[in-house]
């Protein structure tokens, strides 16, 4: 083999194509877009992608409002009396707690919880190929799970049909946000975001500090009313003098139970290195009796578990919200608007293996005159594929909200299953094409490629079976 030296270039520069077919789509995309603008999940972005929130932001304004109003009443009505009769540290401590609570809350709400970006088309196609090749010997539909061994414990990895990848361990797909989130705990309506790997410590500090704040305010208000009624007045008179205190009492009384309960529950989870999701599903308990030996992620030491969960290294956001979308990047599993653009994107031959297989198909046509590869008839894997909806119905997991004791019940399983089987059919049509090989193309194909040149893409585009543009919305 001749020794050729390739000059490495920036992969982004590769995708610039001279094809004019692309120019009309580019006209409306002159301004380079940031990735958050084309993000496929159900999220809202602020400050040009710096802050992320779920589209189902739940009752975040209510949470903030309750905290601000209660503390406002406390500082306005209770503190003057208490400063006079007790100590000046009361508003200081109250103020510090309030600031800490609000910062933790905002941090939890506006931080990326550990969203996994969806697989690129090439990755998804490669996985398809591996799944089809490994499970094609029997008629049984591929189960779309992978079993791996983690610390001598069998863990099942499920395939996510939305994100087109096998979910890493402890990752779950939130149907409200339509994202796979690492170390998924739950979707909290009170903070308006999922709680996952990256914001669990903020969430924990929020509920712990909120417990302290509510207990503190509760105690101070009780002290206030007691002191007032001790000074020769009755209780009713004391309440009449300071009606705001009653409001605070009521709010704190009702929140204390839930907040303290939640704090206790999450302290238990932190100490045993569990997530709410795992605890509710009973993934590890009951398998061997003792919880510690069941959970493969636990370090079997409370202190270590706490340190790892709360003080461990904070991984960066994987979704690169503020990065720029490369000019011709194919957006995987996006919303319907960008799906329409996919057929145009697939004309680019640089980063698209579809074109390579098309050239192989062309070569076979030339050589054998075979009809089977060209006809869009149903492949023999169709029965296999249509068996998928039953597994597809099970795999997207509804996020449990019990951890937040919110009114949000369990969402029904993904209702897009029938559509998935259609899109699956098209993808397997593509992937079972024997021309779809990862090995180096044969010299004959290369010759064909040379003669066809760039025009091949445009003229043979209809041959591409359905193209992944027909993705389910």
């Amino acid at each position, binding site marked *: 083999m*001749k*020794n*050729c*030296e*390739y*000059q*490495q*270039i920036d*992969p982004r520069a*590769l995708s610039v194509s001279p094809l004019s077919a692309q120019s009309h789509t580019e006209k409306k995309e002159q301004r380079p877009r940031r990735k958050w603008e084309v993000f496929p999940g159900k999220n809202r972005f602020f400050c040009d992608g710096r802050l992320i929130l779920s589209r189902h932001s739940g009752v975040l304004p209510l949470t903030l409002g309750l905290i601000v109003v209660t503390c406002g009443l406390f500082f306005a009505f209770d503190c003057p009396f208490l400063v006079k009769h007790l100590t000046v540290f009361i508003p200081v401590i109250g103020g510090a707690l309030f*600031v*800490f609570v609000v*910062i*933790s809350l905002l*941090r939890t709400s506006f931080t990326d919880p550990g969203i996994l*970006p969806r*697989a*690129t088309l*090439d*990755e998804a196609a*490669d*996985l398809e190929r591996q799944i089809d090749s490994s499970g094609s010997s029997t008629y049984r539909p591929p189960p779309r799970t992978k079993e791996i061994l*983690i*610390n001598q414990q069998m*863990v099942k990895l499920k395939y996510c049909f939305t994100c087109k*990848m096998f979910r*890493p*361990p*402890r990752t779950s797909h939130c149907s409200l946000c339509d994202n796979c989130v690492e*170390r998924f705990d739950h979707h909290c309506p009170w903070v308006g975001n999922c709680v996952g790997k990256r914001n669990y*410590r903020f969430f924990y*500090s929020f509920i712990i500090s909120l417990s302290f704040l509510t207990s503190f305010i509760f105690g101070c208000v009780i002290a206030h009313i007691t002191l007032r009624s001790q000074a020769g007045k009755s209780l009713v008179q004391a309440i009449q003098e300071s009606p705001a205190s009653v409001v605070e009492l009521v709010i704190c009384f009702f929140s204390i139970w839930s907040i303290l309960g939640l704090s206790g529950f999450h302290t238990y989870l932190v100490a045993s290195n569990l997530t709410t999701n795992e605890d509710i599903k009973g993934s590890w308990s009951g398998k061997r009796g003792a919880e510690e030996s069941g959970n*493969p*992620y636990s370090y079997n030491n409370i202190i270590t578990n706490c*340190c*790892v969960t709360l*003080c*461990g*290294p*904070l*991984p960066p956001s*994987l979704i*690169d919200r503020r990065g720029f979308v490369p000019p011709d990047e194919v957006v995987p599993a996006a919303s319907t608007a960008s799906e329409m653009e996919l057929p145009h994107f697939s004309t680019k*031959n*640089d*980063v*698209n*293996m579809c074109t*390579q297989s098309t*050239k192989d198909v062309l070569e076979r046509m030339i050589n054998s005159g075979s009809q089977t590869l060209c006809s869009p008839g149903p492949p023999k894997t169709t029965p296999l594929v249509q068996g998928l909806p039953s597994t597809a119905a099970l795999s997207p997991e509804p996020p449990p909200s019990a951890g937040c004791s919110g009114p949000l019940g369990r969402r029904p399983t993904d209702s897009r299953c029938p559509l998935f089987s259609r899109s699956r059919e098209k993808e397997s049509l593509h992937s079972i094409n024997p021309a779809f*090989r*990862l090995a*180096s*193309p044969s*010299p004959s194909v*290369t*010759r064909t*490629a*040379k003669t066809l*040149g760039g025009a091949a893409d445009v003229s043979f585009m209809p041959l591409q079976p359905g193209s992944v543009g027909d993705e389910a919305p």
Partner: protein
Amino acid sequence: MAETHSLQDLRHQAAVAAKVFIQRDYTNGTLCQFQTKFPSELETKIDKQQFEETMRTLNNLYAEAEKLGSQSYVEGCLACLTAYTIFLCIETHYEKVLKKIAKYIQEQNDKVYAPRGLLLTDPLERGLRVIEITIFEDRSLTQ
């Protein structure tokens, strides 16, 4: 004399021959590690030792990023005490190591992979799911 092909010349004619994806290795839990198994598609392109060396180094770097040591605990506690506002000012240890990894991948691409018609993509661009190796078509055979 070795021919130097600019990759810009190749892109018009099916420059990308194939892509190989190195998946994650979860046997040690959720730590970021990649499989070191040598993929068959690269057999003709690169030396197995070289490839495994690259993978091992990457795995070690990721392990360093996620290492639970006194440094990470101090960072975590300090962050908690400052209500996590300290992350607005300083870079976390993880981010520093990720920069090191990016530089290493760039260096490997320049020295080892590009001369063989391969390109490593930083796994961070793929959500730390896979290491994507792009195999470029060898145009020398067709000219």
